[in-house]
């Protein structure tokens, strides 16, 4: 059944269709709606189990993993500062091999404090051991939560998964969403299976214990890496089954008009649909543009990306994040898998959409133009922040007020 849902509601529906038993929670904008909706459903009996409001995200993540390690299906959600507050546990719990799903509603990080979206929060969790799904639509949010549970709970994987959606652009935006029926969701996602990793009287287990020495440490750490790599294969089969049951394909890498493209945009998240629009307009203008978008960022679908981009002339990575002192995170990651490939494209880096800043259609077109120039010149332009003279003029006005110098001529320069 199709109905209008915000991304937050879609995330909550994902948890509901997954029949989450337990939701440890803590409020933060723009995520709060998710836990409020779930609280309502637990209250009304539409969901069985319980929601516990913790006193911090650090505690919330601890409780989530501890409950998963006790053998129930767990869902939780946070955003930005909350994700970072939980960071110690984010890195700790994948090693427990007790899967659960965490939704992150992306929001820029302080400082300066902001409520609007970018991807630095979720990318700070990049190396934690959580599998990472990135959504571009509200439909994808509900579907990804179900896929994430299947993948995380796969016996070969057993790692927690993070499903990311952009604050505001998805979290507060209503779109038509085709909700699977409870029966169909249940057929796709069987009940949680602890696989003997649980706490029970009479069956003692000491979990998450210390190790002595680098050999034991290396073994356990690398096993989580092997499990994450295995998740890539498992994802292929699970996504195929999902497509068969629900008629929607969610491959690890989405390719939009990219197979015959000469130039391509590369991005994740909600603004990728804007890139699709730009691709259509560019095609109308006779320019062979396309979009390549990883849905899975961990495990990193390296081979699929190499295939998708082989033979393209130039690719623009549009990073809605900033690794201070380095640049765009996705750019560096993509470069590492394309380096040395026989027909690798030129790779240009753009930073855009920080703290909710829009990326206009004109900017996509201009990026395409620069890529075409780069192909001719056989050289990419230096990394660029998408930022206009008009924006800087506005900044100057704000700065003049902040400095108590409103109206000073040089501030208007």
């Amino acid at each position, binding site marked *: 059944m199709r109905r209008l849902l915000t991304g937050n509601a879609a995330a909550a529906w994902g948890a509901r269709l997954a029949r989450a038993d337990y939701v440890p929670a803590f409020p933060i904008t723009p995520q709060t709606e998710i836990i409020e909706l779930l609280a309502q459903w637990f209250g009304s009996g539409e969901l069985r189990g319980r929601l516990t409001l913790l006193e911090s995200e650090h505690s919330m993540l601890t409780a989530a993993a501890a409950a998963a390690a006790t053998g129930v299906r767990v869902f939780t959600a946070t955003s930005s500062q909350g994700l970072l507050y939980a960071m110690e546990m984010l890195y700790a719990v994948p090693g427990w*091999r007790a899967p659960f799903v965490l939704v992150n509603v992306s929001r820029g990080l302080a400082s300066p404090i902001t409520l609007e979206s970018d991807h630095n929060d979720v990318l700070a969790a990049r190396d934690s051991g959580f599998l990472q799904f990135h959504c571009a639509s509200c439909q994808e949010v509900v579907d990804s939560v179900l896929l994430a549970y299947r993948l995380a709970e796969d016996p070969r994987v057993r790692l927690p998964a993070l499903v990311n959606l952009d604050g505001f652009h998805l979290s507060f935006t209503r779109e038509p969403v085709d909700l699977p029926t409870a029966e169909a969701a249940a057929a796709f996602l069987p009940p949680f299976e602890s*696989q003997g990793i649980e706490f029970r009287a009479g069956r003692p287990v*000491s979990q*998450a*214990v210390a190790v002595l020495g680098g050999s034991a440490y290396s*073994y356990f750490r*690398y096993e989580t890496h092997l499990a994450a790599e295995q998740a890539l294969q498992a994802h292929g089969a699970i996504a195929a089954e999902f497509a068969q049951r629900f008629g929607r394909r969610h491959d690890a890498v989405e390719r939009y008009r990219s197979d015959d493209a000469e130039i391509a945009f590369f991005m994740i998240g909600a603004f990728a649909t804007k890139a699709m629009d730009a691709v259509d307009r560019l095609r109308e203008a006779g320019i062979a543009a396309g979009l390549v978008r990883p849905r899975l960022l961990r495990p990193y679908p390296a081979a699929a990306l190499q295939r998708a981009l082989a033979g393209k002339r130039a690719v623009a990575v549009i990073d809605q994040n900033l690794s201070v002192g380095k640049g765009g995170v996705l750019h560096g990651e993509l470069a590492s898998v394309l380096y040395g490939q026989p027909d690798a494209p030129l790779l240009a880096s753009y930073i855009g959409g920080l703290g909710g800043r829009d990326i206009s259609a004109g900017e996509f077109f201009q990026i395409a133009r620069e890529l075409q120039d780069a192909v001719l010149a056989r050289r990419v332009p230096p990394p660029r922040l998408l930022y206009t003279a008009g924006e800087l003029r506005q900044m100057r006005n704000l700065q003049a007020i902040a400095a108590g110098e409103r109206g000073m001529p040089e501030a208007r320069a």
Partner: protein
Amino acid sequence: MYRIRLHGRGGQGIKTGSRILGSAFFGAGFEVQDAPVYGAERRGAAMSAHVRAARTPIRERGVITRPDLVALVDETLLQVPAANVLLGVDAASVLLLQGNGDAETWRARLALSGTVVVLPAAGERAEAELGGARCAGAAARLAGVISRPQLIAAIAQELASLGPVATATTTAQALAAYDAVAPHAGVLRESRPAAATAFAAPEWIDLPLESARVAAPAIFAAATSVEVRTGLWRTMRPEIDYARCNRCAWICSTLCPDSAIRVRADRSPEIDLEHCKGCMICVSVCPPQAIRALPERAARARELAAAP
């Protein structure tokens, strides 16, 4: 380069010993590296420290796997496999051992082809707390490149914060050891690093993906810690005089922090020497004073003598 490894137990001054030796080499004009290696364990548990000294800047790091000298503060560690006391000891290495017996017997017992030097044990207390300093003193003499004043200066520097009394006792002990091994002065030689052509290729494997249950740091069993012989931490041993024990039952057993005193069916206590760490709490709490403390070394010697 001199590569020297000190082995002992937490509480025997191994780290201090390595620092004294490091400072002594430094004072003698060498480039130096010294570092302790801690495990999780505590006072009484095996630990080691590593000293490198050379005439050129030192770029090696970490554990010394090819020692020129292994100094062993406490010979009972030879029974602790995890201590890995003899790691890399070969015909060119020197083993300095603090304990009883003569060098030839030790060479034979340990099947070593290199030099063994025995540093006669001092009193129990000095050994327990100053073992590291004594070994440092002896090692300085074995190297033959550190003078008495340089050793004394190094101790003064390392123990400055502990005050004059501690410095004086430590200096006396270290100098006694320095003098005791005088006949072997210079036996320790610098060695060259392994050549790039003479190495055994590492047996690298591709780690297989394994099931989450075994590939997680989780223990699916109860009380596996009894596999760990913490009895080897002990320097003093409690011994029950059953004639005196009035079977008050469980005072000693309840107050032993390590669950190392069992109560038998006849209500008499029995000490689990495999695990008793030798804290001597039982000795001090037994109402009729039926438990006495005796040096572990003496207890072992007695056992050996009694063995058929």
